[in-house]
């Protein structure tokens, strides 16, 4: 969705969300909590980074939170997700506690992956969270295996793999989607088209008009959604998951959204045309839109929304403090768990003058 079409659609009025939903009032409030928490987690990590309390980069989801939150909210408990670095919203919806993500960001010993790998590169199989790696597209083949195994075990699960517009150019994306399609696996690939892969704009990434056009070539169902409308994102995933769960097979969803921050905090976004970021911030912010929606439908008053915001702030402060107070890992823990250490000894550093 181009800035132009948004301007046309909104007629320069503040956007809301789709009104057609069967979400209950309680669910709509829960959805708001996750959306708001995702934004506030992001702001908190940026602040912590500025205080030099984080190790490594910060990869913001600012402006595109609705896609991950809305789609993940439509999944069942037994379903799996493989998120990307900007899909913290999906991870939170899946029930992962923020303190563990803070511990990851701070490279603490309490990090779920023992701080062997950064940020969201951890997993929680119990919660259906499959840990991603940096090589884009690789998670799609992995998710096909999750679903093949699920089928062999006669379990009724669907899986969502989140990818960016850049990921769709990788070989692994192609191999994974094609294999899933052939096997009719209940895999939903959420293609978050946020306009940029690092600095590369979409026009240098793919030549089809829309990413969802690729669905035709793979022989799978293709759906398109306004990625900044959290309700629409929920509804589209509900439709896709139902289709997949009932034997329809693989689905590609293209979510049109916008990355308002650079690739990571260090990126000054010099490649972005003047005014583009500000336009999206002013006219198409997913949180503002959902707040407009909740307010218009009288689900929540502005005061109630503020109160929820305050609660989330306190909660995140506590979670971050827990991580901050956690110990750092012992250096020699680097040697453990390369292999099962009951079979192969840890890879300790060789002492040069040992013998």
């Amino acid at each position, binding site marked *: 969705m181009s800035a132009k079409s948004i301007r046309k659609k909104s007629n320069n009025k503040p956007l809301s969300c789709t009104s057609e939903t069967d979400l209950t009032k309680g669910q709509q409030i829960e959805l708001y909590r996750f959306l708001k928490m995702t934004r506030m987690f992001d702001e908190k990590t940026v602040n912590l980074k500025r205080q030099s309390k984080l190790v490594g980069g910060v990869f913001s989801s600012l402006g595109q939170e609705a896609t991950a939150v809305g789609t993940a909210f439509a999944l069942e408990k037994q379903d799996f997700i493989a998120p990307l670095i900007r899909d913290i919203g999906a991870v939170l919806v899946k029930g992962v506690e923020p303190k563990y993500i803070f511990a990851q960001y701070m490279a603490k010993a309490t990090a779920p992956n023992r701080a062997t790998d950064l940020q969201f590169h951890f*997993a929680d199989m119990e919660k259906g969270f499959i840990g991603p790696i940096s090589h884009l597209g690789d998670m799609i083949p992995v998710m096909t295996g999750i679903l*093949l195994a699920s*089928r062999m075990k006669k379990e009724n699960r669907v899986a969502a793999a989140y990818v960016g517009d850049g990921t769709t150019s990788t070989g692994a994306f192609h191999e*994974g989607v094609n*294999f899933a399609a052939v096997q009719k696996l209940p895999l939903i690939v959420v293609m978050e088209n946020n306009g940029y892969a690092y600095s590369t704009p979409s026009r240098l990434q793919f030549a089809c008009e829309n990413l969802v056009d690729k669905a035709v070539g793979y022989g799978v169902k293709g759906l398109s959604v306004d990625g900044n409308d959290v309700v629409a994102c929920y509804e589209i995933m509900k439709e896709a998951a139902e289709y997949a769960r009932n034997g329809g097979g693989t689905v590609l969803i293209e979510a049109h959204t916008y990355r308002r921050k650079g690739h990571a905090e260090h990126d000054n976004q010099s490649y972005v045309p003047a005014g583009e970021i500000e336009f999206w911030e002013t006219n198409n912010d997913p949180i503002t839109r959902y707040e407009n929606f909740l307010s218009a439908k009288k689900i929540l008053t502005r005061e109630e929304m503020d109160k929820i915001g305050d609660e989330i702030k306190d909660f995140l402060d506590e979670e971050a403090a827990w991580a901050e107070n956690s110990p750092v890992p012992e250096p020699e823990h680097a040697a453990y768990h390369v292999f099962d250490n009951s079979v192969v000894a840890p890879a300790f550093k060789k002492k040069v003058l040992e013998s």
Partner: protein
Amino acid sequence: MATAAKKEKGVTLIEAIRQGIWEEMARDETVFVIGEDVGAYGGAFKLTEGFIDEFGAGRMIDTPISESAIVGAACGAALMGMKPVAEFQFIDFISTGFDMLTNYAAKSRYRGCGSIQAVFRGPCGGGVRGGPFHSLNAEAFFLNTAGLKMVEPSTAYDAKGLIKAAIHDPDPVLFFEHKKLYRLPRLREELPEDDYIVEIGKARTAREGRDLSIITFGAQVLNAQDAADVLEKEDGLKIEIVDLRSLAPLDKEAILATVKKTNRVLILHEASLTGGIGGEISAIIAEEAFEWLDAPIIRVASIDAPVPFAPQMEDYFLPQVSEIVEACRKLAAY
């Protein structure tokens, strides 16, 4: 088992691998096979012929020509507690699954994202006039990646024992099968009736000797034996042959023990010399058994070129028995 009764005594190396996978699939429902043409067709080398009739298409998964998908799917299934046996039609095509193996499979346990109990197997090796893309020995590509185990058998007994050990192993195992050995009559042997495994990480002494040691694996074990026969007959030399069987982890104890016994070492492998596993073995010996050496370590390997097609050129490319004999004589005389 669905195989036709053989007239010859004993089983070939390919039959031994086949038996190993079959028995594990019969015993454990979580073991399954995934790869190109493995199901209905029975595999390019017919290693899994008949499996689909016994175990069904649900456990014999034919894939598109997509090595990343094969490796990735095996990893995903392993995370779910399954034990996949993934096939590369030729080990040369492991290159298109390289990223998934080295970045996903190898690092998953370390990254706290789950252990990958999976076997990645396929036919390797030259000498069959396969040219540059059907003759690869891939171990050196993976030797520098922590988190992957590698094995390569040279006998039918080890092939069956190692494939079973690989399926049982809690970590990802690359299982290399030299295609020249698959149906070699010389390797036929009768296997024990009782179930057995061959432990990963343990070398075996293929031939006892005292004058010098050849450290090798795979098809080169046979070349080493032929060379040892010549040297025993013509020079009276008793050559010890260590068949590594496991390339990662290497059996350092066995390597150092043979060095300390014979004090002269030749390292023999079929992959190209530069950056080959021989360099690593040589470094281990130089660092940990320098005082035990009576001669420089010698490496015999293929030349630093792609595997050529023409028989005359491929024979020049590969280590030959005559070269091994010559190198051993040089070592013995040093």
